[in-house]
């Protein structure tokens, strides 16, 4: 089965193509510009693989949490590929993909992990996973202090762009979470392999974890008789 995976949700623009036992990867760190970079990057990876879009059996994309715009760049592209080729697309959360990335580390293999990413506004995106990558908590957007009270006791490692902050804060709450890695984007091959294991059901949908910034208006109109 040939897999094409896309991640534009965080601090990198990454693609991976799995074709048999080969993996072709492109990844560039970029805070913005994914919308411009993605298609040329995919064209390069496909050319190297010798495959065309019609040879892809499944598309995989990170669905967030991450930057709202970045998440939609990847999801819109992959839904477009799926619509055009008639092949399924599956969504993988960035938290799941980062947990899979953590398991690639020798010291992370076979151990539960907390994934924690900087979500700005003094909050983190976080989720705990067991040694096999199954979730131990729901995905959360949460302040670090509040997070510390919700981490399952058997987790001793933290991974992601907020790992150092969470580790530093864990001492004061009587926990000792060790930093496994501070990667801010998932490994694209790990992402593709996760997508391979999923059963495609519906089209990927973004996972924002935050509501849009908008407040209903009130009292704007003048008084009436």
């Amino acid at each position, binding site marked *: 089965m040939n897999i094409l995976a896309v991640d534009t949700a965080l601090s990198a623009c990454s693609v991976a193509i799995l074709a048999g036992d080969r993996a072709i990867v492109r990844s560039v760190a970029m805070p913005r510009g994914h919308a411009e970079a993605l*298609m040329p990057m995919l064209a390069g990876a496909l050319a190297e693989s010798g495959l065309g879009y019609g040879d892809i059996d499944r598309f995989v994309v990170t669905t967030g949490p991450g930057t709202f715009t970045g998440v939609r760049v990847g999801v819109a*592209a992959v839904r477009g590929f799926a619509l055009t080729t008639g092949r399924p697309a599956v969504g993988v959360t960035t938290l799941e993909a980062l947990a899979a990335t953590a398991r690639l580390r020798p010291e992370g293999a076979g151990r539960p992990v907390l994934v924690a990413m900087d979500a700005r506004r003094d909050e983190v995106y976080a989720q705990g996973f067991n040694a096999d990558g199954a979730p131990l908590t729901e995905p959360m957007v949460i302040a670090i202090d509040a997070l510390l009270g919700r981490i399952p006791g058997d987790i001793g490692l933290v991974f992601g762009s907020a790992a150092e902050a969470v580790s530093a804060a864990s001492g004061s709450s009587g926990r000792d979470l060790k930093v496994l890695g501070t990667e801010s984007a998932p490994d694209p091959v790990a992402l593709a392999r996760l997508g391979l294991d999923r059963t495609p059901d519906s089209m990927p949908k973004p996972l*924002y974890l935050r509501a849009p910034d*908008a407040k209903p208006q009130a009292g704007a*109109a003048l*008084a009436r008789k």
Partner: protein
Amino acid sequence: MTVGIGADYRDGQRNLKTASEAKSDMGISGLRVLGIETSCDETAAAIVVRDEDGAGHVVSNVVLSQLDEHAPYGGVVPEIAARAHVETLDGLIAQALEEAGCGFDDLDGIAATAGPGLIGGLLVGLMTGKAIAAATSKPFVAVNHLEGHALTARLTDGVGFPYLLLLVTGGHTQIVKVEDVGRYRRWGTTLDDAVGEAFDKVAKMLGLGWPGGPAVERLAEKGDPARFAFPRPMTGRAGCDFSFSGLKTAVRLEAQRIAPLSDTDVADLCASFQAAIVDCLAERTERALVRFEEESGGAAPVLVVAGGVAANRAVRARLDGLAALHGARLVAPPLKLCGDNAAMIAWAGCERLARGLTDTLDAPARARWGLEEIHAA
């Protein structure tokens, strides 16, 4: 969510053909293009055919309005719009293809709005369009939304170049000399609010809900347009620029002065406000007509009015009179093609493809993108 699909606008539209009719008309050199529009609060997809002789046909045109999602906020919330686009666009494209009776293989190109507009929404349409173009190896066109409005009269009425365009929407108020595909001379623009924005803001202060243009128009019909002497900003001045912020403030001050407002007060405020708007649009447009006549050696101009505000009957009636006075032909595309839609994007794609103008798949979305900045042949 309100779903408005193309079916009901087939009535009485002479250029709309069935897919098979369009196909048989097309000949070998015709172009069939998928258009995608996500620049504001409508998610839209359409299939348009351009015959070899340049005639255009809307084969399918699907629009999903997000009005209900934004109404509680009194205006379009960009993040809400972008979230709706990404979950609905692919389904609308499938529907547009199905209604057109064709598949991706039958397309000659994919056109998506790349700007100007709300960046989050633009990116959804742009990336979806690029993905379809990449996966089908078909040409891609990154369309300027304003060019879509500007060229619609060629799709609906086969208007030839050059012509004068009055573009009146919720985001833009411009007078443009349309010289060719990609060649636009902007003669006037608004210095502050767009005309549709002025309608919405007045509706908001009078408690008429959002979007407010149709509500203001409805009440204006019952009101006295002479009761309040609102200013006509910019009229009498050289050039064709607009300004509506001072007019909106004048309405607010007058309304505050006489509040609490009776139904008659509200109707009279709407009528007097709309009369001022119509006077401004007419005076500025007349200057442009005179300049157009001078530049073209006295030839009778074609005046095209496009954009959502072109649906306003008082505006249309006044422009009709103005055109008659100058021996000009007024062309106003049908209402379904005046507001935001994807048929105009597909058509702009046809026009550009026919001239060999395509874009690469690294094309950016552009929140700001004036007509004069468009690449021509």
